[in-house]
């Protein structure tokens, strides 16, 4: 949930504002439209009402005026029908003939004037005329200048009186004139006239003159016209409107004031006086706006306007209008106020709530909502809910805070654990002896550990992001990329989680063997390849060494076994040949053959000896001597053994080089090496150097030597034979010490093997340096001996034949060995007993214990092996001389007899001399 900042804090439009806007937009126009409508309706209504009342007034006044005229008409008609009138007209007509000054006229006047004067005063007329058919005014009461004049031909023919006279005769009816200035009367007057008919014939006309005053009362009656209203009457005279009655606003207007017909403000009276009727708001003669009703009064040809100033009519209306506006304004104000107050009632709690919310949001959590709860409406409910919410929130918050704290603690612990774990894992990776590398799906290196950097001799930054192939020899790269492509295409024929032995490429370009273990891992969507790389250079070397040693050992055992059996056979051959030579005449032709047998057998014995030397099981006669002396002694022999073109040089240490070794074997070693060197030089000229020295070797050096067992750290005598010969290729070097491996056509391949066996037998070591075409160096190390005494070996040769020197028990499983040995011993005076195995031997020994002085015991026999027999014999007679005979080297054979008082050892094959001397020596030793 997101809460907009705008919603929480700044209220852009308040409820009060909305209501006010609503009021302004809706109610105000509504009020004004209603007000306007009511006002204009009432306005219109008022105008109509006022016009109606004016209309009524006008109708009343015109009725009154018409009534007046009708009354005049009626009166004159009445007068015309009265007999007095007909007789008067007739009388005056006649009298007039005599002249108005005549007596007759006077008399006639006296007769009728009084009657008419009564009517005149009664009806309030100005004058009364009698006119004869010729138009003569034969009678008038006032006797003005018109009396006696003729209305057809006289000066007053065109006056109003003249007109009504003519009209009366033409129409034969009563009629009236309009008001005009009447000269004889010197004032404005109007006339009403009617023909006087007597006996169906017109005899004259009777006319009455009246003035305007009688209408003024009507016109000046302003009842219903307020303060400003007036009645205007006028008639058209000479293209002007002549006002014919006084006005309220101009009492002297009657027959004095004129209004131009085309004047703008003449409209109502012009309309009326020209025959129109109507009503409207107009401008009157004063220029004031008036409500006017106008009519035409046909009898007088008058227009009449009844009017009232609009200002007066609407005066009270303007008051109402003002009040209306005030009421509307007041109503609106009160509405605004009420809405304001009402909405404030709603919004105040809301505002408080908002403030409370904002305060709460700002972190003030001890807010008081109690004051809000008093409000008893929706806002109160909201406040209530808000309060509820706040308390909920507060408790939730406390819980939340606790949870957060716990979570934080957990997080901390987890973090620590993660850090520890990470450190642990990083440490594992960092300190792993194996190189660890990750490669991404593009084939680039993602990460490496220090061990990997060490293995490939790169720095970390040189590897990161680089292609994996940079760590591979050229030969693998193509296959790697092809395999990678196949993997990208989805061919999952890869066997991960397997170790393979490959070669790596170091920064220096050096190739080295490594053990690679690849695995695939997916981290998120990313596939990474994890490689564990172990540099197995050392391991491989060791393994190879071990393999070699084991091979040598097994070869040694084989060679030893063969040599042992051969020696047994050769012992018999040599022994028998020697015995036979001694028993036959030395001139016999068989002697030469026996000598050849002996020579061949001895060569065979030398071969056996070499085999035993290789196997380390040769018969060692260990003595301490100076190696330099041995080499110097051998110089003559060596020089003849090598090619003439080869120069032999000695480079001997000046120090004494005491070693504890078998002299014969050392000679064999030197001889073999020198001869090999000579052969390596072949027919070229070259040099063979024999070098000797004393060195102290350390552990590292010891490691690099080609031996199965490590040399002990210490002082060693160095014997080095180097030549400038053809050298050796790698293959040759590899198999140099293998038995039966030879590069010579005639060689049997045992020379170097024997050398290695001898060196090993002396706990020494050998290292070969060779470069093809440049020669080879064979460096040998022998432990330097602490004793410097060099014993002189005494070769005692006692060829003495004694008689009955004692009985010797021969225990051997080989029959011909038993017989040969028996013959050899019997030759020198011993009696022999022969037993074919240990059991028989023990039986014979018990049987002949008293006579047996020595026992010749074979080491390896069926049923009871040599040491068992030995122990059994010693159990019976502890001082019994026991000579051990074996085809194995003395060391191997006497191992299990160490410290047990073995009297002597003779290595097979042996000749009669060897056996006789050792037996005599043993027996004499006692």
């Amino acid at each position: 949930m997101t809460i907009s900042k705008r919603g929480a804090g700044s209220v852009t439009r308040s409820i009060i504002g909305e209501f006010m806007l609503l009021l302004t937009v809706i109610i105000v126009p509504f009020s004004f439209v209603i007000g306007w409508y009511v006002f204009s309706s009432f306005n219109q209504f008022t105008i109509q009402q006022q016009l109606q009342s004016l209309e009524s007034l006008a109708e009343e006044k015109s009725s009154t005026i018409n009534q007046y005229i009708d009354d005049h008409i009626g009166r004159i008609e009445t007068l015309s029908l009265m007999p007095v009138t007909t007789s008067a007209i007739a009388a005056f007509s006649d009298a007039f003939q005599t002249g108005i000054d005549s007596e007759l006229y006077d008399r006639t006047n006296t007769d009728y004037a009084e009657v008419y004067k009564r009517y005149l005063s009664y009806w309030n007329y100005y004058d009364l005329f009698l006119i004869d058919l010729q138009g003569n005014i034969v009678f008038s009461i006032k006797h003005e200048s018109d009396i006696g004049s003729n209305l057809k031909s006289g000066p007053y023919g065109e006056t109003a009186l003249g007109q009504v006279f003519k009209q009366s005769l033409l129409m034969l009816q009563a009629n009236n004139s309009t008001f005009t200035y009447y000269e004889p009367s010197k004032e404005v007057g109007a006339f009403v006239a009617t023909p006087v008919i007597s006996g169906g014939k017109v005899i004259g006309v009777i006319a009455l003159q009246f003035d305007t005053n009688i209408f003024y009362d009507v016109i000046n009656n302003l009842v219903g016209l307020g303060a400003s209203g007036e009645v205007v009457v006028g008639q058209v005279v000479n293209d002007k409107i002549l006002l014919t009655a006084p006005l309220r606003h101009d009492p002297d207007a009657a027959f004095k004031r004129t209004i131009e017909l085309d004047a703008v403000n003449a409209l109502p009276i012009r309309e009326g006086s020209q025959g129109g009727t109507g009503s409207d708001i107009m401008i009157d003669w004063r220029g004031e706006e008036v409500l006017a009703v106008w009519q035409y009064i046909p009898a007088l040809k008058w227009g009449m306007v009844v009017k009232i100033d609009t200002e007066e009519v609407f005066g009270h209306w303007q008051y109402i209008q003002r009040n209306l506006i005030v009421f509307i304004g007041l109503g609106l104000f009160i509405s605004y106020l009420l809405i304001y107050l009402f909405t404030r009632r709603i919004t105040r709690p809301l505002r408080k709530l908002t403030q409370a919310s904002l305060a709460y949001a700002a972190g003030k959590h001890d807010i008081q909502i109690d004051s809000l709860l008093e409000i008893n409406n929706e806002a109160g409910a909201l406040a209530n809910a808000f309060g509820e919410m706040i308390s909920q929130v507060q408790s939730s918050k406390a819980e939340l805070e606790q949870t957060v704290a716990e979570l934080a603690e957990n997080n901390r612990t987890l973090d620590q654990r993660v850090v520890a774990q990470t450190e642990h894992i990083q440490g594992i990776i960092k300190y792993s002896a194996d190189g660890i590398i990750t490669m991404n799906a593009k084939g680039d290196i993602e990460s490496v550990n220090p061990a990997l950097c060490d293995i490939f001799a790169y720095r970390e930054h040189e590897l990161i992001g680089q292609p994996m192939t940079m760590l591979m020899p050229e030969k693998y790269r193509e296959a790697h990329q092809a395999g990678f492509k196949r993997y990208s295409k989805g061919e999952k024929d890869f066997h991960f989680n397997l170790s393979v032995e490959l070669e790596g490429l170091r920064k220096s370009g050096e190739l080295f063997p490594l053990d690679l273990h690849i695995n695939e891992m997916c981290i998120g969507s990313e596939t990474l390849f994890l490689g564990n790389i172990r540099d197995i250079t050392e391991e491989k070397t060791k393994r190879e060494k071990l393999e070699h040693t084991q091979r040598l050992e097994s070869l040694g055992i084989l060679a030893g076994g063969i040599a042992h059996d051969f020696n047994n056979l050769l012992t018999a051959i040599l022994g028998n040949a020697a015995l036979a030579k001694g028993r036959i005449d030395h001139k016999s032709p068989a002697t030469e053959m026996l000598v050849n047998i002996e020579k061949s057998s001895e060569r065979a014995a030398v071969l056996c000896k070499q085999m035993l030397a290789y196997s380390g099981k040769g018969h060692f006669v260990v003595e301490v001597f100076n190696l330099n002396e041995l080499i110097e002694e051998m110089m003559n022999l060596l020089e003849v053994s090598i090619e003439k073109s080869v120069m032999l040089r000695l480079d001997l240490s000046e120090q004494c080089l005491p070693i504890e070794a078998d002299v014969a074997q050392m000679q064999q070693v030197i001889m073999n090496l020198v001869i090999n060197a000579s052969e390596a030089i072949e027919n070229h000229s070259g040099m063979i150097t024999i070098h000797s020295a004393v060195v102290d070797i350390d552990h590292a050096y010891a490691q690099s030597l080609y031996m199965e067992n490590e040399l002990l750290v210490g002082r060693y005598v160095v014997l080095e034979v180097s030549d400038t010969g053809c050298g050796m290729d790698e293959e040759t070097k590899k198999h140099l010490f293998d038995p039966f491996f030879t590069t010579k056509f005639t060689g049997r391949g045992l020379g170097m093997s024997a050398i290695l066996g001898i060196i090993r037998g002396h706990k020494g070591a050998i290292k070969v340096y060779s470069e093809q075409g440049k020669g080879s160096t064979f460096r040998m190390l022998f432990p330097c001996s602490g004793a410097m005494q060099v014993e002189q070996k005494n070769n005692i040769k006692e060829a003495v034949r004694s008689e009955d020197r004692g009985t010797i028990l021969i225990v051997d499983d080989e029959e011909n060995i038993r017989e040969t040995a028996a013959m050899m011993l019997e030759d020198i005076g011993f009696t022999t007993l022969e037993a074919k195995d240990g059991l028989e031997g023990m039986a014979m020994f018990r049987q002949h214990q008293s006579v047996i002085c020595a026992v010749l015991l074979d080491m390896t026999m069926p049923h009871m092996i040599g040491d068992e027999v030995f122990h059994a014999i010693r159990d019976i007679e502890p001082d019994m001389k026991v000579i051990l005979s074996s085809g194995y080297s003395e060391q191997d054979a006497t191992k299990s007899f160490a410290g047990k008082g073995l009297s002597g050892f003779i290595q097979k094959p042996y000749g009669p001399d060897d056996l006789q001397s050792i037996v005599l020596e043993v027996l004499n030793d006692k």
Partner: protein
Amino acid sequence: MQRLFVLIPAAFILLVAVITLWREDDLPPIKVGILHSLTGTMAISEKPVMQATLLAIEQINAKGGLLGRKVKAIVVDGESEELLFAREAERLIVEENVSVIFGCWTSASRKMVKPMVEKYNHLLFYPLQYEGLEQSANIIYTGATPNQQIIPAVSWAVQQFGPRIYLVGSDYVFPRVANWLIGKQALALNAAVVGERYIPLESRDVESIIEEIQKLKPDVVLNTINGDSNIAFFHRLNEAGITAEERPVLSFSIGESELTKMHDDDGDPTGHFAAWNYFQSIDNQQNRNFIEAYQSRFGKAQPVSDPMQAAWAGVHLWARAVQASQTDDSQVIRQSISHQSLIAPEGIIAIDQKTQHAWKTVRIGQIRSDSQFDILWSSNAPVRPDPYPALVTKQQADAFLRQLYDGWNGHWARPIAMDKAAGQMMPHTEKPAQAGNQP
């Protein structure tokens, strides 16, 4: 919310507009009846009057009607049958609920409608000059009374042409009464009626009249023949070689409409005279407007005549009364109309308060060859209407009318059957004055 601020005032304005417009349309029209003969012998004269009445109504409607209502004319054909006029008048009042009836030409039809409007206290506007001797509170007479046409004309004729008068007319109430009055006037003026002849309506048998005129040689012939008979009369007059200079004929029932037809039908009355309140040839703005409006509505060549103008003015006077009294109630209008006046084509027409007749200007014209009149004389100002001329008393007039009515077997015209029964085209030579003397 903002949408509300727009919608509410908009709805309010719409409501006001709808109410205003609805009120306008809702008001029912003011129905008025027009009752004239659209068929029959009087159709030729009455149809143009009906049209003039319609024109006035259309003009009022064009200006927005009356009291915010339209005026709706219900035109009814009287078929030249006076009985039908009575029936249709009643129907208009009772069934159609008209506010007012404009109609009638002949006095016969008016006298049949008069009882109806009086019975229902309704209102009839009658546009024809007539014989007078009548005054009804329920009829507004916008045509001339005898003193507004016949009497001044007779006075004028006697002065102009001489005192020997010959009277000829159709045999129905108007010519009879008119000539009765002319007889009285002649006496008063010291003139003499040398002959008096009547022919039935629609009759063309004027031979004996022509012969009598030729024989009596009157100074002036006063003609009250109505309808087509005039064609025959003037045709025969011309045939007989009687010229206007020699024997001027002053007609009281030949207007512009009749002249056109007479010219077409070889009854040329050119040079003779007629008395009317209105002539088409009157030269003022009101008349020009009236003629233009009528002709643009009903045809360029259509003539306008006195009864048409009087009918047209009658409608406008009625309208003014409605406006002034703010109602179309016929009872109120009757009061209000007596204060109305109008600047009409003929001049000011004002309704006389006392008689409910119109103040009218009298005119005498000489017939031109183009069926128009040259106005020779005018009263200059509207003349007070006087249905009962000073020459006779009301009692005399009523008695005379009673005699006519009874003599025609309860008709206001001489029935044709009577003529046939009499077996002759009877020229009545009896003196109306004598008849008038009988109660």
